[in-house]
């Protein structure tokens, strides 16, 4: 190593090197301040690679046809992920919404899908469609058709074009008018939000009441045939009975399988129908059939029909989910309904070897007091209710054992309530099923989970359920889901926030291994007013930007968050930080939390949430639980399932909630179900540099 001699005159080379270094440093510094870091606009990326927000792209209406939702790609200043909005209006709804800017920063670049050469039009039902995919065009350069007849599954949709001529041509065919980006971005759109879903939950309950009452009226028919007296077998009795009459099945065991081809009521009086172990016991192929007071066993054990699935794949009608439709819809069942809308199943017990009640092809059914005892090992059996393209209304029923308590596939608008599930794989399992209500059910010892919504449906409400001792309480994916007033105790995972643009509120999450898990990479949901008590970890986060779990100045209740020397709610709580996570278990964590090092690091943490990753922050943890009564009941080992009076609470405030229903990515202006409207936020207009 060269000796350092400050007194010798440095050689020319050294001098040049020093001068060069100085110049470079000076130039770099000057350049750093002169350069504009946001100047370079990123190029559009493949839409498959973006993180989707906005409308669901997997609603039945979109999956089943050629309809499209114009898409938008947004590059936010803080967020490392490219966000794709289904529906230009979905993105527009977030513009000026402080919440999105707070989470992601401001949009640097926005691209919209333009349909100049894509042969745009509308489907028979008025949904926007195009023969080809559009091209990406910078949002401010595009021309937009608003107010045309083209709609999205959620309502009005904006159709972008690159050239004004193309836009005018579309206007000529489909109405509306062509406007610029500035006009579009300042418009408000009448679209739904998760808060709106919450608002409709009590209505869905009422609708179920009406369906049940109608079913009761349907089932109440004059007696025409009595089995044994008028006909030797149930099948013969059913065949003999005129439409709209009742077949009475006196007490006893009837060893037969039968098909109901007429709209009749089969009313058992402590009667058991026992199949021969092959196929389904009762097959219903007529509308408005009622089956009451029966016990059913002896169905075949075939859960799916691989033959049907294969045929469907090879030469079927090519529907996107033919495989599952046929595979899941063609097994054996205690009661099987095919194209039989208006089915009523009341006071029926099924010993299920495969499915208990299998519905397909629009067999909209009401089930009350249905008891399905499935197999002990879930792999041996199938679903308590399998509903394929059939809207079910289930109340006061019991599902034990078997694969899934209730499996619904393309069964929009189903209601499952007041029922008990135990020892299933999943309790209630929804696929491609939106606008459903899963309410006031009790789930126990579910192997995989209590309530699970897979794929990306929209507008489900999961309310007032009580899930315990299961792998997971509630795992709902999709969009605009309302998960509220549930009580989740002693599960491995309480709930996950897999559904985007959704609202998770008023849940009591106690004694779970992990209370809640943030799963979506880009946060777009609200998690607020939940009570987290006695969980090993209150919450965990998967990959993705920092999640802010609060609504304005209203956070969640976290046991331990307010331990220490500060006013309750004054200090942000981070359930994912090792120190905060230990607060409810180890008091000494307080001393670590108050250390200058932690304080200095924590102070600005929420400043650029979009640029951070893998954690959760609640800037305003609540001082006391939101639902103390339910919490006490949840923690009491002797108390039964906990119910919440959510219908009264949600109905009571519909007049006072200031919902921002046009913002479907978030969930509304104020989501406080109480009368208190959102106060002015205390965050500075810069988006929260001061403190999270």
């Amino acid at each position: 190593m060269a000796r350092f001699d400050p007194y010798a005159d440095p050689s020319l080379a050294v001098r040049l090197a020093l001068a060069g270094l100085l110049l470079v440093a000076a130039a770099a510094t000057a350049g750093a301040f002169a350069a504009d870091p946001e100047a370079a606009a990123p190029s559009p990326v493949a839409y498959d690679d973006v993180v989707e927000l906005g409308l669901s792209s997997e609603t039945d209406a979109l999956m089943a046809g050629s309809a499209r939702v114009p898409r938008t790609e947004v590059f936010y200043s803080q967020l490392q992920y490219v966000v794709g909005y289904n529906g230009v209006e979905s993105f527009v709804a977030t513009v000026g919404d402080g919440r999105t800017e707070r989470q992601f920063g401001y949009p640097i670049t926005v691209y919209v899908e333009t349909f100049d050469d894509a042969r745009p039009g509308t489907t028979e039902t008025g949904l926007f469609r195009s023969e080809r995919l559009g091209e990406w065009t910078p949002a401010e350069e595009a021309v937009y058709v608003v107010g045309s007849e083209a709609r999205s599954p959620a309502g009005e949709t904006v159709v972008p074009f690159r050239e004004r001529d193309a836009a005018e041509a579309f206007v000529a065919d489909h109405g509306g008018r062509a406007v610029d980006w500035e006009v579009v971005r300042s418009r408000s759109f009448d679209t739904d939000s998760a808060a709106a879903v919450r608002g409709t939950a009590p209505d869905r309950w009422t609708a179920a009441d009406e369906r049940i009452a109608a079913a009761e009226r349907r089932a109440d028919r004059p007696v025409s045939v009595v089995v044994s007296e008028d006909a030797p077998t149930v099948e013969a009795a059913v065949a003999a009975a005129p439409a709209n009459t009742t077949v009475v099945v006196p007490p006893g065991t009837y060893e037969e399988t039968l098909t109901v081809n007429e709209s009749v009521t089969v009313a058992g009086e402590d009667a058991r129908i026992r199949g021969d172990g092959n196929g389904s016991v009762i097959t219903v192929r007529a509308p408005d059939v009622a089956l009451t007071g029966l016990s059913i066993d002896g169905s075949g054990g075939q859960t799916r029909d691989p033959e049907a699935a294969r045929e469907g794949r090879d030469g079927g009608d090519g529907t996107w989910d033919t495989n599952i439709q046929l595979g899941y819809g063609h097994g054996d069942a205690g009661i099987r309904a095919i194209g039989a809308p208006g089915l009523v199943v009341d006071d029926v017990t099924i010993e299920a070897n495969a499915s208990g009640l299998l519905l397909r092809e629009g067999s909209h059914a009401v089930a009350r007091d249905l008891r399905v005892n499935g197999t002990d090992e879930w792999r041996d059996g199938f679903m308590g209710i399998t509903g394929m393209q059939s809207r079910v209304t289930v109340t006061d029923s019991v599902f034990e054992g078997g694969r899934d308590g209730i499996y619904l596939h393309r069964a929009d608008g189903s209601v499952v309530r007041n029922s008990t599930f135990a020892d299933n794989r999943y309790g209630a399992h929804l696929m491609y099923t939106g606008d459903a209500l899963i309410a006031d059910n009790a789930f126990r010892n579910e192997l995989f989970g209590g309530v699970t919504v897979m794929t990306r449906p929209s507008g489900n409400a999961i309310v007032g359920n009580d899930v315990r001792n299961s792998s997971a309480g509630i795992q709902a994916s999709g969009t605009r889901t309302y998960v509220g007033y549930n009580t989740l105790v002693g599960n491995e995972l309480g709930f996950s926030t897999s559904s985007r643009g959704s609202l998770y509120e008023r849940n009591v999450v106690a004694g779970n291994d992990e209370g809640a898990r943030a799963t979506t990479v880009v946060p777009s949901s609200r998690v607020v007013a939940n009570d987290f008590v006695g969980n090993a970890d209150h919450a965990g986060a998967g990959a993705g930007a920092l999640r802010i779990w609060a609504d304005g100045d209203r956070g969640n209740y976290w046991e331990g968050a307010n331990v220490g020397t500060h006013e309750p709610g004054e200090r942000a709580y981070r359930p994912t930080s090792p120190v905060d996570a230990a607060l409810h278990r180890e008091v000494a964590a307080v001393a670590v939390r108050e250390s200058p090092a932690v304080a200095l690091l924590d102070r600005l943490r929420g400043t650029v949430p979009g640029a951070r990753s893998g954690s959760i922050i609640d800037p305003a943890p609540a001082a006391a639980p939101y639902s103390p009564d339910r919490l006490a009941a949840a923690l009491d080992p002797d108390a039964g399932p906990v119910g919440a009076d959510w219908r009264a609470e949600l109905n009571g405030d519909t007049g006072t909630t200031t919902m921002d229903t046009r913002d479907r990515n978030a969930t509304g202006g104020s989501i406080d179900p109480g009368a208190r409207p959102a106060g002015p936020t205390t965050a500075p207009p810069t988006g929260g540099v001061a403190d999270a």
Partner: protein
Amino acid sequence: MTGPLSGVATVFRRELATVVRTPGYGVLAAGLLLVVVGLLAAGGGGATGFVPAVVDLLLPTEVLVPLVAVVLGYRALLSDAESGELAVIRTYPVRVGEYVVGVLLARTVALVAVVGVPYALVGGVVWLTAAPDTGIFATHTGVDSPVLFVRFLALVLLLGAAYVSLAAAVSALAASRRSAIALGVLALVAGVLGGDLALLRSLAAGASPTTIPEALALTPNGAFRGLVFEHVIGVAFAPEGEFVATGRAVAALVVWSLLGAVVSGAALAYGRRVDAVIEEIRSGFGG
């Protein structure tokens, strides 16, 4: 080389030699690197980008950099005076101004090495390692860019230079090593806390909040913090308003540096006369 530059250059080289021969400064740099790396590791901001890394470092930096600067400067002028070397130097044709500028330049270069290198290394690590959590989605950097970290580094060094200069002034005023430590700590506390406390006090006393951008720019820490918000972190937000008057803040940091130099020079030039006056007063009180 002749003229004032030659004097400055000679003193600069001598001072640089002193710095290089002080192993403690190397340890200081290593320690600083350790702390900064530890902060990033604990804070986690460095894992995703430069802006969150700066967010994690900002507040600790406000304490660490002044501390290092004071350590570098608190004896800069005192040790020569104490050992009598200053008196010898004064017999050479080197003016006080040249001497002070030479010493300060050398100490500032030391600061660039001791503070700049650890921060630059950390920036390099962030550059190499920062990545999104998951690669299954398309990603981009947003406004995050190494440029922002270079800005931060430049502002850090500007803050450090102001404190080096102020610490040198302290060293010129101090009469002994012990009093230099005491005065240095005082300057540190006054700088890190005092300015903001004064600002708080004036706001509490009824000063208009509209004066904040200008008042904030007056203290070195306030100016630094404001500049980092304005030019580094604030870039991630939609442009609106300003956190600090940029020109005023930069000017304040430069002025604090110059002020330190002027005070140092004045103390060395007239200190002995002041001492004499003080001594007279003291004897007048009955000594």
